[in-house]
């Protein structure tokens, strides 16, 4: 095994220190053996530390990983991080929620007393203060949030990988090193929150030298997890024609005055945001990290205001997130880049459960770094497709970078995986996904994930609901 791979095998975190490009220069013949060895080691290391993994592996009769099929049997379903009952949130049973979370992390949470928490935000705050965890959440179809138990160190590593990617993706040192040379940072969203993207941005700001002076946010405050959950529940209930069935926790109702104040502060800032962006950073090179849909909304707004070519040519955009549930016009990218005034963009496929994103190349393929072991599963039987040729099916993976939670996960996405026996025309070696990716729930015509930060109107609706309910 070449030195690079033995180094990753010794500690997958070496992926950060080694040159990013090396990860895409591995012979296919070596990758399989490395993946198997690394999976074996990771499983052996976490099996007795993460209770849920131990239980699953006992049930499946898997004591060690001796082949990829063993690994498939101990991957977590994509529902795992929201497998707690919604009533834990509705009835403020945060003691039980903590116990549930304890089963999913190698950290010991048995000493945490969360029984006094009355809202999700309070609970997340408590864990921030008393543990190394920096939980992030996503929004599920029912408004039940997925809680991912990632530590502060893991969250930092996510951003270090991002730094490497920006610097080296188009060739070593072709991009800026955002830690050594901080750039002004613009985020057309909340300043922070526990929502995956916002939590990542908040921690990144510290690392990338973002200060109040060299940054700009659409909303200067943090997004509430409670409101995000409520927004999802309202959307889900409306989709089923059951709006009459929503119940609010007393904790949420009691906090309504806080929300009213936030709304008052927020309303005028949309127009201010664009003025400030132009005034403060117009013509300068900046760093933007956001989803396509949020960026599209923002640049459409800019166009309506007659603003274009806002930033300097050396700016950096990191984007992704597909266009979840959005109908974008054919010229959506043109609208975005005309508004921005630069075209250095890094588009990633990723999900909150995975620490490294897959950057897209000029041939339209998402390239998978060696620290993620990808699988394509038959969507009906759940069996793995062969590690050869090209296959379409349900995306599953083991993320080697996680240290305190099991990175083995079966996603809800349909992907097409190639690269086992041929390389991408861009010259990079290794495995890659086609850019045509969709959620199975969309394919079957169901309701998709509710992307709450991408849909402020859902958020506003939640606040409105809360105010009406409280009257």
């Amino acid at each position: 095994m070449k030195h690079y791979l033995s180094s990753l095998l010794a500690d997958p975190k070496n992926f950060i220190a080694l040159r990013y490009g090396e990860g895409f220069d591995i012979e296919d013949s070596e990758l399989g053996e490395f993946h198997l060895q690394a999976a074996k080691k990771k499983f052996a290391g976490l099996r007795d530390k993460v209770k849920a993994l131990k239980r699953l592996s006992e049930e499946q009769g898997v004591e060690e990983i001796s082949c990829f099929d063993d690994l498939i049997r101990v991957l977590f379903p994509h529902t795992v991080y929201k497998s707690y009952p919604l009533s834990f949130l509705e009835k403020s049973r945060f003691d039980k929620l903590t116990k549930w979370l304890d089963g999913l992390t190698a950290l010991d949470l048995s000493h945490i007393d969360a029984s006094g928490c009355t809202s999700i935000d309070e609970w997340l705050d408590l864990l921030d203060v008393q543990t190394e965890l920096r939980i992030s959440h996503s929004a599920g179809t029912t408004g039940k949030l997925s809680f991912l138990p990632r530590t502060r160190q893991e969250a930092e590593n996510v951003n270090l990988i991002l730094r490497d990617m920006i610097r080296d993706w188009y060739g070593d040192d072709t991009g800026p090193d955002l830690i050594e040379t901080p750039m002004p940072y613009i985020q057309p969203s909340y300043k922070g929150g526990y929502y995956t993207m916002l939590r990542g941005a908040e921690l990144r700001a510290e690392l990338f030298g973002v200060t109040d002076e060299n940054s700009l946010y659409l909303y200067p405050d943090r997004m509430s997890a409670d409101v995000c959950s409520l927004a999802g529940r309202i959307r889900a209930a409306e989709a089923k024609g059951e709006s009459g069935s929503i119940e609010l926790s007393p904790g949420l109702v009691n906090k309504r005055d806080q929300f009213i104040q936030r709304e008052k502060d927020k309303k005028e800032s949309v127009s201010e945001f664009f003025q400030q962006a132009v005034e403060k950073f117009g013509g300068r090179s900046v760093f933007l990290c956001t989803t396509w849909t949020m960026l599209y909304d923002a640049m459409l707004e800019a166009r309506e205001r007659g603003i274009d070519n806002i930033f300097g040519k050396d700016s950096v955009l990191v984007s992704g997130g597909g266009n979840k549930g959005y109908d974008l016009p054919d010229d959506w990218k043109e609208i975005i880049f005309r508004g921005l005034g630069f075209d250095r963009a890094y588009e990633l496929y990723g999900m909150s459960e995975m620490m490294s994103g897959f950057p897209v190349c000029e041939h339209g393929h998402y390239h998978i770094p060696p620290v993620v072991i990808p699988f394509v599963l038959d969507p009906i039987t759940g069996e793995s497709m062969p590690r050869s040729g090209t296959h379409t099916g349900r995306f599953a993976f083991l993320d080697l970078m996680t240290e305190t939670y099991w990175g083995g996960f079966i996603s809800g996405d349909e992907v097409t995986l190639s690269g086992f026996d041929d390389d991408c025309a861009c010259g990079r070696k290794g495995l890659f996904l086609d850019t045509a990716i969709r959620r199975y729930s969309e394919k079957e015509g169901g309701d998709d994930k509710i992307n709450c930060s991408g849909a402020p109107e859902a958020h506003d609706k939640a606040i409105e609901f809360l105010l009406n309910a409280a009257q």
Partner: protein
Amino acid sequence: MTDLFEVPLVIRGRVVDDYSRQFPGRMGSHGFATADANDYIEQIVLNRPSDMADLYSISFDEIIEYLAELGPRLALDSNPHMHRAFELSRSTSGLSDSILRYAYETIPAAFASSETRRVAENLVGVDYLEGWVKVRDGVRVRAFGSRAVHIIAGNVPLVGVATVIRNALTRSDAVIKTPSNDPLTSTAIAQTMIEMAPEHPLTRHLTVAYWKGGDEVFEQQLYQPRHIEKIVAWGGFNSIKHISAYLQPGIDLITLDPKQSGTIIGAEAFDSPQRLQSVAAKAAMDVGVFNQEGCVNARVIYLVCGTDASGLEKARAFGQLLFDAVQNLPQSLSTPHKRFDAALKDEVDALRFVEDEYTVIGGRGNEGAIIVSHESEAVDFARDLACRVANVVPIDSVETAIKSVNAYTQTIGIYPDSLKDAIRDRLAFQGAQRLVSLGGACNPPADAPQDGIEPLRRMCKWIVDDTQ
């Protein structure tokens, strides 16, 4: 696409052999080809209300005789149209072959004169259908048929059957919009009617068509008060929401909208092991018949067993008996689901990560599962329970179960009957629509109200003759 099924458009006694539009099948099922309904809109609508007159040239007895003659002709093994409908359904339906066969085999009996006469008598009143009924001196009332579009559900073939019978009994004119998961059963009945009596008024007042729900060009022309008077809509929230956009004065919407059904089992079930076994067998019928594809099927089962440790033990024991009983249902009524809902499987799989809260019995493959809650709360995905997955919820008192009933509840199976009698009024206040002895949920009486309304009366126009 070599395996496209041809689905003829039937317009009032005429079979249109035009298969110019193709529709893909859902989830790997057969696609089918049929006529473009837009090309036939002028013939599909009944413009002249006076064209209803021929239905009044026949007596009620003749209607009953017509249906009685039609029934035996619909036998699966001797009727090629029905056989084709069965073959297509094998691919489009969520029901396994053995269940489908059983369902098709029960179709002829629904047309028996004793059955149809009772339906007419109990749901409308034969006198009102047959003539002007004096309600007091000078005031007479008669139930006339109407021109209606029926958007039917395809979860079980019997929905189309009931629609044909109801249309005939009320002397109405029906345009049946078939569902893509059962595009052929109603068509096959209409074809058989044409072969039996091509000129008969009942044959001449049935149209069976498929168009894609949401085809606005077509629907805007169809849903006009000059063309139709009623819309009878079965099915999902989205379709009903969509149809409501066409409502205007002159069009009456009768909704048989999606409902959920449940079960309440009293503490008496635990009186003896034999009794518990028998209760589990009854509950298994409510859960498993027709693979839980119906809105009448039980999903959440409230069990008055207590919520302490011993209560929970009882709930688990009952859950195991129920699981076994579901697995042992006859093949003609219930089987492992042939297309187990993948999203539901993910939800069930996730429960093993919260084992303090739930016990899952089964659920490994497509066999179905019983989820026993450890607290008095149903699972978060209770609305999506299907494919023989049910949730047993232990409760201390029947009050918890009563409070769970709401406007989205249809049938509640109850054990014992004395409990049903004791709480039936309160369940009705909450929103429940049918209260039935445990085990009988899937056998609703054809001659009683449905979903809290009387669809047959609603299908009629109630005309008053007032002599003053």
